[in-house]
């Protein structure tokens, strides 16, 4: 028995692609180049704070500021390693897995990345920033007193707090949404 909708589906006017092996190799190399360039840009962006705070760690006269710079450099390195690991996990995707397994694995990876943003993206920067704020407070305090020092660092501390808590909160929301999607998927299979 023929199914008219299946017949209709099969009758679509299409011209399927038949890429040659050479063409596929060329596209594969082009894609690899793009990924390498994107990675280089990301690592380049990470190198900027490393260079700036690395120079500060060597040249600054205040020991606390030097310590803060070292902590920031280490924090940025931890973030970069985290980004690199997550990009590697994404590249290792099993495209030939059954569709539901593949979809679930993608959701789990995204959920885990979002849920752990605090641990691998925000927390490594906290000691360096805290030391930096402390260093600035101390420098202002020595010249203008506690009130002026506190007034000087209060706005950036507040901005950093809102920024960090906001990112954490948004990522937790995203992770919860993905958990619900995973649960719905598990009910299907």
């Amino acid at each position, binding site marked *: 028995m023929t*199914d*008219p*909708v*299946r017949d*209709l*589906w*099969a*009758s*679509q006017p*299409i*011209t*399927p*692609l*038949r*890429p040659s*092996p050479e063409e*596929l190799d060329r*596209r*594969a190399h082009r*894609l690899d180049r793009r990924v390498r360039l994107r990675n280089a840009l990301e690592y380049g962006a990470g190198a900027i704070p490393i260079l700036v705070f690395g120079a500060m760690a060597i040249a600054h006269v205040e020991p606390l500021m030097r310590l803060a710079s070292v902590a920031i450099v280490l924090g940025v390195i931890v973030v970069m390693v985290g980004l690199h690991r997550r990009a590697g996990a994404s590249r290792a995707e099993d*495209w*030939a*897995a*059954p*569709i*539901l*397994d*593949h*979809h679930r694995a*993608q959701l789990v990876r995204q959920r885990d990345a979002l849920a752990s943003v605090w641990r691998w993206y925000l927390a490594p920067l906290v000691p360096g920033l805290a030391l930096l704020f402390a260093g600035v407070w101390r420098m202002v305090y020595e010249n203008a007193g506690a009130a002026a020092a506190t007034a000087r660092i209060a706005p950036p501390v507040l901005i950093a707090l809102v920024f960090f808590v906001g990112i954490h909160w948004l990522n937790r929301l995203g992770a919860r949404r993905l958990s619900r999607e995973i649960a719905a*998927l598990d009910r*299907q*299979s």
Partner: protein
Amino acid sequence: MSRDNPPNETPCARRERLHAEAAQTLGPALARLARAVERDPDRARDLEQDIHLALWRSLETFTGDCALATWTYRVAHNVAASHAVRGARAASLVGLDAVSEMPASDDPERAAGAAQALDRLHALIARLTPADRSVILLYLEGLDARQIGEITGLTVNHVGVKVHRIKAMLARQFTLGDQP
């Protein structure tokens, strides 16, 4: 589709042979999948290219544990689903149940004609969740419940239920038998 390696075949030659075989037999299905997931013709063409590229790369690790067709459909649908997720984060996707409850077209002129019917079918497919979209596309390609189960990872019984709903929904939404 043959899975046997000719003697003295290099890994490169094997991959070329497998890809040529998959493109030959399933190329039209891959093109239809790309058009179902991506309505813009240029982007659909890009998606089709991406599917071929992912398939090409994946065939390096094809061991023949499953049929080449199953492997090809899995890669193609996984690439298409990832593309759809990137392109339509804001779209509200629904399951087969919700689509079944949508009113059938009450405009006979609009419903008439294969082109319009295809448009409506594409619009309906685009609204489905990735899993249901894959099931309906594989059903439309003529696969049976066992094959769809192997590709999607759903149990055969579950596929059977979904296919039953798909058939009922298509029968309600499309009255192609009335066409000349």
